[in-house]
């Protein structure tokens, strides 16, 4: 966006960003260091950021999970469910977005409104009818109810990609058509690469939303061997008994790692720009 920036500018920039970010993530930093404190001390030594004694107890205790099922199982389950969901979600959402935004088919507006409306009803009143459907399909206590609906895309992603596609001039479509491209080719060879930042953004969101999903997982996964990380984390903090906050924070940090790593890795795709130089010349 800018050309050469003066060193002072750079310095100010970094200072500003760092100080804001420090305030922003202080709670997380606190959580990170608390996970190394002795569990009983976590809440009694709030002011003291660094642990006086660094312990890995919380990680051991936390990792052991409950009644013999360790977090290894939980992580594995989370990975399977989440990865499958993300693939399906992004794929189908981008297809649907293309359909809505670029193809004038009958019923488009009505279905578009339907799609938006799916976001406006709180999930709490849908869980029972949905449960009955899955129960009749015999899918309870499997991963299917968690993954299959994701292969229908999500309104959030569809709408997002539509907005990004809106930024792609329709002259592109015309040009491609003249060149003999059919719709599908247009979609795969031209549209998708152009909205890659949006697709990757969706993938990141899809990943951590699914990773985080608690209620859906809990309802359909009844046996601890199938539990995902999100359920396990919730089990650590039950208000009716003393909670092991040290272990909770420790496991929470661990569960954040995949998401963070994914984000760092995919960063550059999100922030790639596009050049529509072929168009305006």
């Amino acid at each position, binding site marked *: 966006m800018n050309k050469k920036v003066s060193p002072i500018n750079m310095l100010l920039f970094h200072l500003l960003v760092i100080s804001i970010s420090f305030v922003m993530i202080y709670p997380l930093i606190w959580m990170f260091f608390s996970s190394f404190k002795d569990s009983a001390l976590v809440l009694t030594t*709030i002011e003291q950021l660094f642990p006086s004694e660094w312990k890995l107890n919380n990680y051991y205790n936390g990792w052991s999970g409950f009644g013999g099922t360790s977090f290894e199982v939980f992580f594995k389950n989370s990975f399977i469910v989440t990865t499958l969901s993300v693939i399906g979600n992004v794929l189908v959402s981008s*297809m*649907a977005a293309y*359909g809505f935004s670029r193809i004038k088919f009958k019923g488009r507006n009505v279905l578009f409104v*339907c799609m938006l409306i799916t976001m406006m009803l*709180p999930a709490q009143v849908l869980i029972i009818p949905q449960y009955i*459907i899955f129960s009749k399909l015999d899918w309870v206590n499997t991963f299917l109810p968690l993954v299959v609906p994701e292969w229908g895309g999500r309104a959030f992603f569809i709408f997002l990609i539509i907005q990004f596609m809106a*930024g792609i001039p329709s002259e592109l479509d015309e040009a491609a058509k003249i060149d003999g491209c059919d719709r599908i080719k247009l979609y795969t060879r031209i549209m998708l690469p152009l909205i890659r930042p949006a697709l990757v953004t969706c993938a990141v969101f899809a990943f951590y*939303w699914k990773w985080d999903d608690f209620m859906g997982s809990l309802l359909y996964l009844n046996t601890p061997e199938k539990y995902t990380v999100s359920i396990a984390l919730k089990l650590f903090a039950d208000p009716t008994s003393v909670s092991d906050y040290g272990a909770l924070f420790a496991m929470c940090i661990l569960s954040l790692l995949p998401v963070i790593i994914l984000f760092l890795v995919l960063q550059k795709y999100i922030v790639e720009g596009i050049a529509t130089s072929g168009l305006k010349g």
Partner: protein
Amino acid sequence: MNYRSKNAELITKTKNRNRFKENVYGYLFIGPWLICFIVFMAIPFVTSFVLSFTDYNMLSEPKFIGLNNYIELFTKDKLFWQALSVTFRFVFLSVPLRLLFALAIALLLNRQSKLVPLYRCVYYLPSILGGSVAVSVMWKYCFSKTGVVNIFLNSIGIPSDISWISNKDTALWSIILLFVWQFGSSMLIFLAGLKQIPKNYYEAATVDGAGVFRQFFNITLPLLTPIILFNTVMQIIGGFMVFTQAMIITDGGPVNKTLVYVLYLYQQSFKYYKMGYGSAMAWVLLLIVGFFTALIFKSSNTWVFYENESKKPRTKKLKKVVS
């Protein structure tokens, strides 16, 4: 004569065939979504709508009671209005704040620099935590009487020792701030949008002598409007649906000052075993949210600029830059 009508016939036939093709393609692309929508969404939607006219405790068959739920909701339920008022305050305070921060930070971080990816990750972190228990627990302690927030405020000279989450005036703010703190996802979307603005626009503008502010208002903002529309609509919908944080951090308290709508709905449905009533509440919410969404969409005709359609607003200056 013959020739002309034959031509017209041919044209209509082609048009029809094209329309048919368009329809086929359209449904092909939205196919998977449509199927899942019908099976996993439409049916439950209709079911919940029907349930809203029943007395349903989930443990036995629903009993049809007509409009009673709705009538009771609007005429006898004081907490309904409380919940609405809390939720409205929440949405119209937190959403603008969130969008503002998201846009500001996105602009700030929209540059090439080695450390920037790291910064982006840092700003994005809070929103990854979402409604997790750990974050809510931690937030509770940060905003407690002896928590970090007070320590911080005291250290910069603002005396403060209130317990933010249990003070009836500030309790809602602690939830609002949590929501705003998690602006990372909106920020990412703005970033992606910013990246999609072709660099040559800015280059041309600089050549024309436009300064930074001019460039922002005449290039960035207009081209970002589809994304702004998206984020606004999404955040408002999300804001109305806020639930987990309110449940874990304050559980609607103190004295129902943070009783957000969906939390109250949840209490009615699962704590008091009145799923029919809860369903009615849900549909009222849908109407409210739908209303605001429609309002925003309607207004978007005047302020959103789509490059692939020839809409009008603010395009004069932009066209000048572009052409």
